């Protein structure tokens, strides 16, 4: 019986093992291995050079700058998508007994469901300096007197515009997680606090936030790691520019490998992304294990 179970289970997971080892782990290990090699055009072969690629890249200006962009992207993106997601979740929780909740929830979640590339395209139409709705509205209200170049100048503004689009696209995901968390907090805790005379802010700090804590950790961990995925929005809005101001690590890796065909250099960046991903995955597993 036990043997049969093992054999059957093996049959059930075999296709998955074959697929993920040939389409995920083999390419991944291959890429990591490449980062230790150097391509020799003369003999059209690769030779092992140890950590040389790493040493060259890790101290190069373009890598450090890109790392800085990624960290800024991560921190600002996390803070704002968390705040907006939390705001949306609190709102939906207040409305949860209304009939039309499904419409409002649907509207708020919609940005998350569409393709990142399409989100980028939509904001291309909004940020356009001459006819985009943003500049035309601001001019009309009189808040600005000349067109603002949201995606080009000043470069730091461009980075923040790209982060804004990323937050717009991804905050709903945090909203859904936090909403599930809010709905799992038992109502009687709030009633008891009210009897004890706690005001709304105290109830939020002493009941809502502690109740949400596990969900907040999951949400921040996942958003943190998914920031490394942001590519489509940057590609369509700025192509990593102006200068290198929106070039995150993922974009830098794409450029090195597929624009400049520096396979080994690009593999170094990718290996660093793998390490970061692994770190987040371990943190998440540890967190799951603790619960």
């Amino acid at each position: 019986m036990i043997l049969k179970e093992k054999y059957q289970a093996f049959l059930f997971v075999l296709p998955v093992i074959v697929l993920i080892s040939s389409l995920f782990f083999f390419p991944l290990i291959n890429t990591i291995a490449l980062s230790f090699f150097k391509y020799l055009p003369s003999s059209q072969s690769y030779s092992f050079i140890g950590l040389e690629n790493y040493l060259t890249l890790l101290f190069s200006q373009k890598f450090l700058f890109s790392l800085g962009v990624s960290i800024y992207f991560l921190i600002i993106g996390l803070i704002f998508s968390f705040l907006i997601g939390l705001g949306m979740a609190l709102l939906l929780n207040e409305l949860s007994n209304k009939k039309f909740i499904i419409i409002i929830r649907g509207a708020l979640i919609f940005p998350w469901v569409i393709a990142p590339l399409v989100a980028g395209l939509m904001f291309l139409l909004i940020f356009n300096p001459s006819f985009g709705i943003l500049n035309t509205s601001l001019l009309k209200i009189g808040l600005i007197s000349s067109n603002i170049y949201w995606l080009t100048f000043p470069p730091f503004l461009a980075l923040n515009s790209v982060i804004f689009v990323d937050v717009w696209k991804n905050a709903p995901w945090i909203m859904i997680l936090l909403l599930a968390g809010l709905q799992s907090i038992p109502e009687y805790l709030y009633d008891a606090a009210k009897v004890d005379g706690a005001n709304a802010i105290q109830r939020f700090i002493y009941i809502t936030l502690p109740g949400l804590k596990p969900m907040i950790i999951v949400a921040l961990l996942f958003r943190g790691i998914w920031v490394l995925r942001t590519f489509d929005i940057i590609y369509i809005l700025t192509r990593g520019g102006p200068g290198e101001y929106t070039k995150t690590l993922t974009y830098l890796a794409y450029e090195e490998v597929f624009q400049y065909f520096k396979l080994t250099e690009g593999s170094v960046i990718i290996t660093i992304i793998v390490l970061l991903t692994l770190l987040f995955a371990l943190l998440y597993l540890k967190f799951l294990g603790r619960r």
Partner: protein
Amino acid sequence: MFQQKSMEKKKVLLIWATTVLFLFYSLVPVVWAFIISITPERYLYTYSEEWFPSNISLSRYIAILTGTEIKGTYVTRSMTEPFLKALINSIVISLSVTFLSIMLGLPSSFAFKWLKFPCKRILFSLIIFIIVSPIILLLPSIFVIYKQLNLLDTKLGLILLYLGWGLPYTIWILKSYFDTIPKDIFESALMDGCTYTSMIYKIFIPLSAPGIVAGAIMSFLLSWNEFLSALILTNTLSSKTFPVVLAEFVGEYSIDYNTIATGAIIACIPALLFTVFLQKYMIKGLTSGAIKG
């Protein structure tokens, strides 16, 4: 008493103001793209005068969805045909990935949940690692491997890649749905002499239908929305997906924002259908894995 009533009123007002604000924030980009898509050409640069166009037409949607031209404008067949072909490619690829990931995902998530086998924990940890990994990790090597296997620029190549990258997510969703099914059901079926295969088809598929719908939506969206690997692995209209053609269009005909907006809205149709008709399942798919693990 009176004070409490006015507090209540203030609270209601605050809630409604916030609702309007968030709705505006979430929907303006979509609505704006839709307005541009139904606006006649050359109307664009007078937008500063009015926000909603006075004469509208759906002709661009018809042109793209049928691959025809609009007479008297610069929307030609050479412009709309790529859109139509890419749209069909995207549909074929996304549906294949959805079907295969459910077909392969069901038995394996069943095994992960109910059966004992060696290395189960390690394998499941690897699955979580894949879920959090960005697809860029694979692309340099996949490109080289696909070149040797003649899988570059084929729909099959993209289907396989999306399956390898997306199947773990489906398994995760299905397994966390299985977690909600009581163990008694599994044990009594075993007592009755049910084989595992018939158990899956007769008991677990009907019981976990919402989980299957959630998993199917997620794997459809994953392949429908994916852009980076399609950009790298496709080269001609035999396999280019809709997002790739859309992105190219921005570079090629940078002036025609109306058609870009139309394409963007068409790309949103599945998202719209899921949000309107299957929202409950979509949210289940979104949260189930992350919460229970």
